């Protein structure tokens, strides 16, 4: 087990390393880069700026005046910056926002709790909905309850979350003059109000994600229910509850646990959309603003953080296999 964990952790390093390269390369992919956008904007506001001169200045300020690989090395912290100091991703320094001139890490730190709270609530709701419905659907296969559960799952898969959010914004306001809160309530001041602010977007993300989860829970539960040890459990005369919960459910935990690994990218996507609609000042909103303002340091940092989340989520899911399923042995 320990060897396996070490092996997995070591494998993460090349993965994340290539990710940094992909992100960096993507950012420099297009000829019309940050400088053009900035210079164009400066030209707009600053009036008669000499474009050539300001361009060189901006390039120097952004560190874009050196070759591509030097830029990458500096960004990663492998090569010294213009002033000779090492600061980059490998030193935990994400750089400085091109627009607000604040360290990116500060910008993110302010927004992280919002996104984290939203994601955790969504994840809890996903599982609270998906697991019972999925199990019920499998246990009562091909009954009305099953059909209802399956239609429910496909329904949630088909309804896009941004449409649902739009409906939630529009119709309660029309019918009952009520709309979801779109201002920030700090948890410390008003815990209930704070949860109330998150509950609607979290419900939307959670229900949307529960469709796929419910279907995989049902499939696995169906498969487990046909295993020999379940027949043995029935034959021993155990109660249905015991058979289902102690024998069958434990064995469906694997897809449920791995599901987290697949859920994470969806949660991140959901957070971007929901934070935009419900005006939650989280990382998703920061990401959209940064893209619109061509703030490349912020965008690439957020992409990297997103992929670190996904990589570690998958790692946790893989390791959790061993805890929930004693049959799996790591080598």
């Amino acid at each position, binding site marked *: 087990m320990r060897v396996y964990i070490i092996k997995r952790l070591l*494998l993460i390093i*090349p*993965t*994340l390393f*290539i*990710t940094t*390269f*992909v*992100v960096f390369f*993507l*950012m420099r*992919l*297009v000829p019309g880069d940050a400088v053009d956008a900035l210079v164009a904007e400066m030209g707009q506001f600053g009036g008669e700026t000499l474009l050539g001169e300001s361009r060189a200045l901006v390039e120097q300020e952004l560190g874009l005046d050196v070759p591509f690989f030097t830029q990458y090395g500096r960004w990663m912290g492998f090569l010294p910056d213009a002033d000779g100091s090492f600061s980059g991703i490998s030193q935990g320094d994400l750089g400085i926002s091109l627009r607000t001139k604040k360290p990116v890490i500060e910008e993110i730190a302010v927004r992280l709790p919002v996104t984290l709270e939203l994601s955790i609530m969504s994840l809890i709701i996903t599982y609270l909905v998906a697991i019972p419905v999925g199990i019920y659907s499998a246990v009562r296969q091909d009954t009305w309850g099953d059909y209802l559960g399956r239609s429910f799952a*496909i*329904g949630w*898969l*088909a*309804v*896009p979350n*941004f*449409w649902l959010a*739009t*409906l939630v*914004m*529009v*119709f309660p*306001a*029309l019918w009952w003059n009520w709309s979801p809160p779109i201002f920030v309530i700090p948890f410390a001041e008003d815990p209930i109000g704070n949860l109330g602010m998150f509950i609607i977007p979290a419900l939307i993300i959670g229900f949307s994600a529960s469709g796929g989860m419910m279907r995989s829970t049902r*499939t696995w539960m*169906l*498969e487990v229910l*046909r*295993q020999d040890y379940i027949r043995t459990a029935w034959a021993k005369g155990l109660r249905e509850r015991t058979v289902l919960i102690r024998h069958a459910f434990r064995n469906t935990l694997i897809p449920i646990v*791995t599901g987290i690994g697949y859920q*994470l*990218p969806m949660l*991140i*996507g959901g957070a*971007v*959309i929901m934070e*935009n609609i419900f005006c939650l000042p989280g990382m998703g909103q920061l*990401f*959209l603003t940064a*893209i*619109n303002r061509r703030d490349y340091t912020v*965008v690439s940092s*957020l*992409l990297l953080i*997103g*992929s670190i*989340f*996904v*990589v570690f989520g*998958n790692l946790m899911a*893989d390791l959790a296999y061993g805890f929930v399923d004693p049959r*799996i042995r790591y080598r």
Partner: protein
Amino acid sequence: MGNGADDSSSGRATERKRHSRLVDFFIRLVREKPLGTLGAVITLLFLFTGIFADLLAPYGMNEIHPAEALAPPSAKYWLGTDNLGRDMLSRVIFGARISMIVGLAATTLSVFISTTIGMLSGYIGGKIDLILQRFIDAVMCLPFLPILLVIVALVGPGMLTVIIAMGIVWGINGSRWMRGIILSYKENMYIEAAKAIGCPTRRILTRHLLPNVMPFVITGFTISVPGVIITEAALSFLGFGVPPPEPSWGGMLSGPGRTNMFLAPWMAIWPGLALSLVVYSISMFGDALRDLLDPRLRGGVGRYGVRVKKGKKGG
């Protein structure tokens, strides 16, 4: 349909066999999967709506009637009008065209990419596989909606950008799954036989391996289309998809129209409803297709095997 099979019976034997298999498939679809058939019918309806949008739409997609802006559904405007006085029905109809083009084109590109990578990586293996898979690991851990937003923002919004961006991202993500299938199919005897008679690798790939994994390619295609369509709508909704004057369903739900939805709630309903209906139908059809084509996914035992687990742990 039965006649079709008889007509071609005078032709070559292989021709007849292929034809009758297709007819067989439709008969099974209708008999065994009523919901899948319904899904296929609705999907086809939307497809034709998209193709014949010019004939079906009562008004032009960007034709404005400022005097009748925000008009509720009526005999003249069946689904009402939006804030600029554009007919919602016509826009929803033209929206079907955009959704279908993006959905089919991006998925075709993605299936092509994932099959190519999957075959190269899975069949040739060795160093190519190792290096390619590390790269794919890296791309797969990038959350896909943000990465699409970045690509579209950098290249500039537009239908072609969206199609190519989604095709590449989806293709790379799907290639892991395709590689797993190739890995299991390349162990078959007929591949070894082809190798033994000196068949070149390219011929083995295109003539021996590809036809045998075709059911997976087809199911992979139908399973991906709904996600691609929803993602296009989400991108357009966020302003990074098909740009505004074009009536993309996602774009119709966002933008300046949003503030008018309180006055004209129908603006919030129709594009989303059309989107959900299409996604639901294609999903149902895709599920039915998978059940009919893919013997491994029909349920029952066997999926608990070690091979599946290894494939998942590749990262």
